[in-house]
């Protein structure tokens, strides 16, 4: 756990870079320090491992004041990854990853084993990469090795300063996904600096938004989007914050459970009548085991005189899997030009139904400034 208490950084020339920041990062949590350049986010991060001396206030690492620790020992207990990566070009991938283990006097075997494990974790084949030099790697691979190096001695805490900043958007997106998966496994306490609101929303369990050295809002991403504290936050998260919040919510949070279904061999006339009496024009078709088959709508059904549901069914409905974000689901709806999207699990078993109407309602709610429902995360 990291706790900052009224931390200030005032430079000799009087510049106040950080003006009394207080917040806490719980164990296993990824906290994003977000803000425009010059807001003090990197300075704040660097005071945690004392790369920048604290002028006033205290930072506690698991209850110990970091001023009472030897600065080099302190830093060896925290992984450190930066945008420029800073891999050592005269060292192999393994030597780079083993930097901290070597400083901590691990044996050669332990270091190598750890390097292999980390490369594996980063999705890089240890046998292929362990003896390579940084110049032989692509940008994305270097970035991965940089992260692997920061995990070298398995530190409980990691400090990451725009670690995915220097790569193309597609690779960045992939690395973010990979890292989130890794984090689920390793559960480090992470302080992550970025100026990119989308990255902050995607990566953070909590986001600390800073401006001119002050902490403006400290909240989970969804809350930041739904209830910006003031004009600055609102402007910073952007006018498309509703769309952004759709990225944060999962289909299962917005879908209707147990929607009405029919089967392929049901009698079409019966189904038409049901639609008529219930004033619905859309029904999901499932097969044995509640597996999604397709859908049938009133218009199509009207053109078919008799027979079974299968005769009027549209097979390609599009669907969203549990866990998909609402933004992705919305994209599918727009692509397929449908207003209803069945939600299924991995085995294609029907779990619920997401309607465009529900999405609209949700968007309306997030737009309500006060008193609106905040989606829980």
């Amino acid at each position, binding site marked *: 756990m990291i706790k900052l208490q009224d931390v200030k950084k005032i430079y000799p020339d009087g510049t106040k870079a950080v003006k009394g920041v207080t917040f806490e990062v719980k164990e296993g949590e990824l906290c994003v320090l977000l803000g425009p350049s010059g807001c003090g986010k990197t300075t704040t991060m660097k005071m945690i*491992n004392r*790369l920048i001396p604290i002028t006033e206030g205290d930072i506690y690492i698991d209850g110990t004041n970091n001023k009472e620790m030897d*600065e*080099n*020992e*302190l*830093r*060896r207990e925290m992984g*450190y990854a*930066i945008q*420029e*990566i*800073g*891999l*050592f*070009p*005269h*060292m*192999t991938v393994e030597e780079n990853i083993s*930097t*901290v283990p070597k*400083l901590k006097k691990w044996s050669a075997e332990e270091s190598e084993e750890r390097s292999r494990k980390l490369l594996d974790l980063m999705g890089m084949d240890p046998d292929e990469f362990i003896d390579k*030099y*940084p*110049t*032989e790697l692509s940008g994305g691979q270097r970035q991965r090795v940089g992260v692997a*190096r*920061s995990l*070298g001695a398995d530190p409980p805490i990691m*400090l990451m300063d725009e670690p995915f900043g220097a790569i193309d958007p597609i690779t960045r997106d992939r690395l973010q996904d990979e890292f989130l998966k890794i984090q689920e496994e390793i559960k480090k306490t992470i302080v992550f600096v970025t100026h990119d609101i989308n990255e902050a929303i995607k990566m953070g369990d909590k986001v600390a938004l800073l401006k001119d050295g002050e902490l403006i809002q400290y909240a989970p991403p969804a809350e930041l989007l739904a209830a910006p504290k003031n004009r600055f936050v609102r402007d910073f998260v952007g006018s498309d914050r509703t769309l952004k919040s759709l990225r944060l919510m999962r289909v299962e949070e917005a879908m209707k459970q147990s929607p009405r279904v029919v089967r392929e061999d049901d009698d079409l006339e019966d189904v038409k009548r049901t639609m008529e009496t219930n004033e619905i024009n859309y029904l999901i078709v499932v097969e044995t085991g509640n597996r999604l088959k397709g859908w049938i709508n009133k218009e199509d059904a009207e053109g078919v005189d008799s027979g079974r549901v299968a005769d009027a069914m549209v097979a390609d409905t599009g669907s969203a899997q549990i866990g998909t974000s609402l933004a992705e689901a919305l994209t599918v709806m727009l692509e397929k030009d449908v207003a209803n999207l069945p939600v299924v699990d991995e085995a294609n078993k029907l779990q619920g139904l997401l309607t465009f109407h529900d999405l609209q309602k949700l968007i309306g709610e997030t737009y309500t400034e006060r008193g609106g429902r905040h989606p829980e995360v």
Partner: protein
Amino acid sequence: MEVWNYVNGHWITIGSWTLDHLWLIFVSNSLAVFIGVSLGIFIAGKGREEVADTVLYLAGIMMTIPSLALFGLLMPLLTALNLPSIGFLPAVIALILYGQLPILRNTYTAIREVDPAMIEAGRGMGMTPRQILFKIKLPLAVPIIMAGLRNAVVINIGIATIAVFIGARGLGVPIFRGLRTSRMDMIITGAIFVSILALLADGLLALAEKLFTPEGLKK
């Protein structure tokens, strides 16, 4: 033909001059590397920009003093210090001074130009300033320092011939004597051997430069 005859008849003498010459170069440049690299590391330190400017400026001036004049200037200085003012010692001192600029400047530049991101990463991972110097800065600076040394050695092999004027031995001897006695064969012999020595040293040091360049920097 005359030159060949001279060389043929004086193998042993020429050999001993060559060895003397090499010894002078070896001693002076070893010390020059030690002093130049240490001083280069020192002035490349944080907050020493002004010291660095002064030191590099002085080393630059040193290069502009004609060698003959420098030897002449050293004599009263060494006499005052009660040290031998002619022979090996003043020659070594002068060559050390001449070797300083390339070695010092290259060391300084190489260390200053190590990517700040690497140093930042090193510090952030808990490396001490000493570890950063020996594990990051110096290994990365080695090829450039070696290039400076190569430069210094080649310059000094030439300059060392002039040291004969203050009584040092070496390949300057046949040149000096040849000049006094109008023996063209001796002058040319001396000149050829100095050139061969310089070329050989240059080649060998180029090889050493490659050898000392960390593997990862070659790719």
